[in-house]
């Protein structure tokens, strides 16, 4: 098991390399450059040439690519070209904890709501609880974060004034709740649906009939025999869900004014801040890959016996 995990981890390195190469190419082949203008003012060719030389941008591209790779191997993301007092690592180190906190809370919230709701719906198939869960899930899936977020602010912050509309305050629960809820809703909805279909399928299987024929009782059949395989689709979705939570932080951080990393991506791309954009892509790429791997390993652990056919 451990060896398998390590092997899978090692297999991520080429994927990561592909990611870096691809994004490097996209970022650098785009028209324009970081020093076309500073604070709206065009720079003289002399100043621009000096700046480009200082940051090594006058070297041939393959050379720059290798330089970037060797920096990355040492954990150095390079300097930010737009916020020139900071390195990219410093910017990420400040923003990342915020984004990860919001993402992780959202994921936890989604799991805690979505999976029990799915189980309930499957057990009460066709009855009120099932229809309610299914309708809510359909609605939540159709509600994108950039709609939910302003609506939540409108209702809970502006009208009811229960929770603050924006801000972070070191991540206190009051400030965390609305952003996390925004991200959690669609994930919870998908989890509920997957759990419901998964459980219904398992419950109609022959081995469940056989377990009931052994007089094991409903609770035992559900917990001991049905649940584990029924959760496989939902567990499988956790990887993409984590990626979704990470990507969704872009919107949430904009609407709720959180000091996360999301804004760096768009701003960095607009400013042609090459190292910042690359740093964001690499860090989020690693997070996504690790989430997918974790979901994969979890699935393997849940399903040890399904090898035969």
């Amino acid at each position, binding site marked *: 098991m451990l060896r398998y995990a390590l092997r899978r981890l090692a297999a991520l390195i080429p994927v990561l390399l592909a990611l870096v190469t691809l994004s490097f190419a996209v970022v650098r082949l785009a028209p324009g450059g970081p020093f076309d203008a500073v604070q709206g003012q065009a720079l003289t060719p002399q100043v621009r040439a000096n700046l480009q030389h200082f940051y090594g941008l006058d070297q041939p591209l393959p050379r720059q690519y290798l330089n970037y790779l060797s920096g990355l191997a040492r954990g150095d993301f390079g300097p930010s070209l737009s916020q020139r007092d900071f390195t990219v690592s410093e910017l990420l180190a400040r923003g990342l904890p915020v984004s990860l906190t919001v993402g992780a809370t959202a994921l936890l919230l989604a799991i805690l709501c979505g999976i029990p709701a799915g189980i309930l719906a499957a057990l009460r198939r066709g009855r009120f609880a099932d229809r309610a869960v299914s309708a809510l899930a359909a609605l939540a899936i159709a509600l994108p974060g950039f709609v939910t977020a302003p609506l939540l602010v409108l209702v809970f912050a502006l009208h009811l004034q229960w929770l603050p509309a924006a801000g972070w305050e070191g991540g206190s629960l009051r400030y965390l709740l609305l952003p996390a809820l925004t991200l959690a809703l669609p994930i919870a909805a998908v989890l509920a649906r997957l759990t419901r279909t998964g459980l219904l399928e398992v419950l109609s299987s022959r081995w469940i009939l056989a377990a009931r024929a052994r*007089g094991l009782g409903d609770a035992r059949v559900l917990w001991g025999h049905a649940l584990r395989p029924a959760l496989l689709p939902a567990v499988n979705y956790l990887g993409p869900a984590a990626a979704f939570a990470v990507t969704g932080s872009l919107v949430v951080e904009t609407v709720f004014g959180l000091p996360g990393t999301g804004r760096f991506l768009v701003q960095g791309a607009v400013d042609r801040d090459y190292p910042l954009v690359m740093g964001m892509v690499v860090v989020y790429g690693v997070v996504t890959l690790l989430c997918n791997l974790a979901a994969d390993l979890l699935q393997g652990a849940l399903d040890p016996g*399904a090898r035969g056919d």
Partner: protein
Amino acid sequence: MSPETPLPPGSLAAGAAAPLLQVRGLDVRFGGARGAQWALRDIDLDVARGECLAVVGESGAGKSQLFLAAMGLLPANGHATGSVRYAGRELLGLPQSQLDRVRGAEIGMVFQDPLGSLTPHRTIGQQMTEVLVRHQGASRTAAHASALELLARVRVSEPRRRLAQYPGELSGGMRQRVMIAMAISTSPQLLIADEPTTALDVTVQAQILALLLELKRERRLALVLITHDLGAVAGLADRVLVLRHGRTVESDTVTDLLGSPRAAYSRALLADARALAQPPPATLPRLQSADAVGAPLPAGVPPLLEVSGLSVRFPVRGQGWRVGAPQGLQALQAIDLSVGAGESVAVVGESGSGKSTLVRAALALVPRSAGRIVWLGRDVGSLTAGELQAARRRLPIVFQDPFGSLDPRMTVAQAITEPLRVHEPALSPAARQGRVGVVMEALKLPASLAARYPHELSGGQCQRTAIARAMILEPQLLVCDEPLSALDVSTQHEVVELLAGLRQHSGMGLLFVTHNLALARRLCTRVLVLYLGRMLELADAQRLFTRPAHPYTRELLAAIPLLDAVLQPRRLAQVRGGEVPSPLAPPSGCVYRTRCPHAVERCTREVPSWEADGAGGLVACHRWRELPAP
């Protein structure tokens, strides 16, 4: 429907106390009050202690529903009314908590498809102990010990290791033994076995039935056997209930049912079963005389199909968590076979014997790792792609799954026409139409089916369409890969008669793959016996069935049930055990030696060579000459 008085007292139950299980006026329907579908109407039955009641019927007769209803296991839209009394206690309408004290504790159940009936993610040990802990309040250690004992009792090999394994790691027969061990673990008085042998190989079927018979005698079990197989009924049952479309057709003792069935439907069922098990009627011309078997064919007439040294190896990679070097699975090892003009040859064997792979490789549908293939005198290896495609029209194949082998988007007429469009594109539409009409008539497919899609047909109609599609090109050799195993007995009989008729009419050759020896005898003049991808015996059908030389052939023959309520239980009692080894690690020397009762030390060392049996056949066994006559 039934002319009988309500249930004549069973021969064994007569004089005994009240029956253990008593069903009266049981109705089962699905769906709401309006538009309800009746699965069962007005069923009465009794089962006494120590007695086996067989419930017989074809698919859709409602025989499984009967006992699911009795046990409160119907799906949510199913409703049962009437009375089901177990040991004097009404089961219908019993609250579930009380039902759960009966199910598994006093009534055990064994299902068809033992892989699907065991929870895949829990080990055998976990599932067995769970039942004991729940119903007998046993401690985990005690439960573990009894589980071990039970596995040994049902003769599972290496029981200690099995307890830690997952269902997917066991063979089909072993899984069914585990199911039985679990069902009898709480010492129930009634055991319900729902098609317990259906998906299993013939030899394993006999083993499972023998085990059930033993348990029934040893524990005075009341046994309900739900089956469509009259052979199983003959071996195990004391009384029989025949169902059709949810109603009782006949209820009788097994001797009476097999000897002089009263209802017309029972007579038809029995006639179909007997016809399939019997050798062909003498009117069928024997195109190949017995002494020509194995001998070179007359010069000038090339065989339809000839393979020599044919081997197939499949790459196998480690799956899931297991990391390992890729292994090879030797599916076929050096097969030599030829089918002469107008000859019919059967390839028989159990699952994993490579019989399907053999015909697929011989038709160049599966790549071969070694060997030469000759079609109608032409070496397949020397043909260009175009020539190969053109040559295929003379050797079409019919597959097992009747629905899967037809394109769901083509009507019957379109499917049958397709080969003509490909091989004779110049044909006018009218001429094509005419040929389709002729073939459909030959296969007894009514013209009204021409515009139907496969999902609107029955299994038998699908299979006849597939045969028509093959026949329209006037083939010289028809290859059939288990064409009957997915069909009901009466449909099987119908298709067999059709095939026999077609052969007689057109003089084409037939290569017939089957696990059912009786079918091989019915249709073929020569039989090849395969085991783990190796040839064990090749002989004229008459010789093979009357004087089998190879011990494995003998075992296969002994596993064919006789429709005789006196002889069959005795034969079952003599059934030997044994499992097919994994094809990934075949035994050294003779591959059959691990199951062979006559194996000696030499068999582990030397691969037996082909020896002529003196009657034109060939045998691969070191000891076939010394064996006692069967």
